[in-house]
């Protein structure tokens, strides 16, 4: 079974024919070509597939695409305004919060959802917000520093 659902993706209202059993991560990557969202474990364990649904961090690999009907989905492709890097992306780049880069889209989306709710989190709050995201390269210290640098750079959102 498949049916047509409406939703907003990266700021654009769209309608798509979506099979009942399709996962959000597969819909984004395979149907829409939004391959910035990664599939690491395919089991809810790593956070690489983190996207925002109605502004909150969610795992694309544990979410049925049809369950986000009528909602707003944001992926890493949406965070930089006019082709520029967002402040989180800039900070991850400058502070070495990214190495191989596989975890980075998920890290940035999780951090993005935190900063929208809480523009000035302390280190514990940052660690908690990113606690569902695994990184095999950085050892996390540089990731936390990157989020802190983005906060210091000011301007919530973009």
């Amino acid at each position, binding site marked *: 079974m498949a049916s047509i659902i409406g939703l907003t993706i990266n700021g654009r209202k769209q309608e798509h024919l979506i099979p009942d059993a399709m996962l959000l991560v597969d819909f984004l990557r395979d149907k829409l070509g939004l391959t910035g969202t990664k599939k690491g*474990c395919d089991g809810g364990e790593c*956070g690489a597939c983190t996207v925002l649904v109605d502004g*909150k*961090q969610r795992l694309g690999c*544990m*979410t049925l695409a049809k*369950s986000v009907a009528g909602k707003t989905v944001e992926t890493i492709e949406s965070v930089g305004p006019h082709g520029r890097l967002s402040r989180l992306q800039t900070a991850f780049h400058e502070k070495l919060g990214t190495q191989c880069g596989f975890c980075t889209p998920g890290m940035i989306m999780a951090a993005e959802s935190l900063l929208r709710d809480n523009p000035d989190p302390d280190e514990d709050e940052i660690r908690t*917000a990113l*606690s*569902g995201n695994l990184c095999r390269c950085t050892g996390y210290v540089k990731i936390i520093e990157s989020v802190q640098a983005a906060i210091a750079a000011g301007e919530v959102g973009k």
Partner: protein
Amino acid sequence: MSAEMDFELATPKDASEAVALMQANPGACYIAGGTDLVANLRRGIGAPPMLIALDGIAEMQTIAEDGTHLVIGASVTLARLMAEGLPKRFAAMSALAEVAGPGLREAATIGGNLCLDTRCIFYNQSKWWRKANGYCLKLDGDTCHVAPKGKRCHAAFSGDVAPALLVLGAEVQVVGSGGARWMPLSDLYREDGLDHLTLGAGELLVAVRIPLAAAALHSGYAKSRLRKAVDFPLAGVAVALDCKDGRIADLRVAVTGTNPRPILFDHFPDAIGQEPTGAVLDAITREIGKDITPMRTTNMPGMYRRQMAGVLVKRLITRLCAGQGAKG
């Protein structure tokens, strides 16, 4: 992972429609947040022809007070309960923040957490892994690799929120073809890893209620896990107590992660009226130790989980009694 999923997704608008759909479609399965179910389906654990989505049922999304209870719809997410400040009202509900990671808590519901499938290292594996191992009694096979001589499944119930709700005296509302009924949360479970819920065919958990009076108890939740996030409990302990002049006046303990069901202990005649001295705490853990039977279902040995359950019980009781003293 990566078993292909193939099912029809039904989206009922109220609880009775959901129950009717379930009864008309043998093998169908409810899906709430999907954070337990999808992980299992992707491992080829079950292949239901139909999933019945609970997120379109408005009556299961509400949080309300009825004078004596806080009534929570089963589809309310764990993140929303945290945002509503539940852990501040009922301290044991800090268990909400111990479930999985933040992205999962945004989707995970309280009903799904209470109805979580039991877990075992021989079960929560991909289909090819389980096949190479000859499957097991819980699914597709006939031997239990944990206790091969027996014919029982020892997979552990590993939800974090159930023990907190048990010590707070929570009840659940179940809807079936015969209408709705409330029952104590402990009656939802039985000691069988294969079939740990007492729900009848098609029955749906629609709400949970916590007595408002439980807010006056001193309660808490403590969890042993490998990593501080994402991991399920190796053992999880909730305690609620009342303490008068440094003496235990009322005591309830519940343990998760060790048995096929979360277990409530509310009968400690020898501890009531006593100060929480080493000997009294030892007696309490001995009492609990009679029923908790962690088996080799996780990557940590059963003995470790058994000892950790005892350690957590003692720490929590000591901390909660001390907290009460400080409050005067």
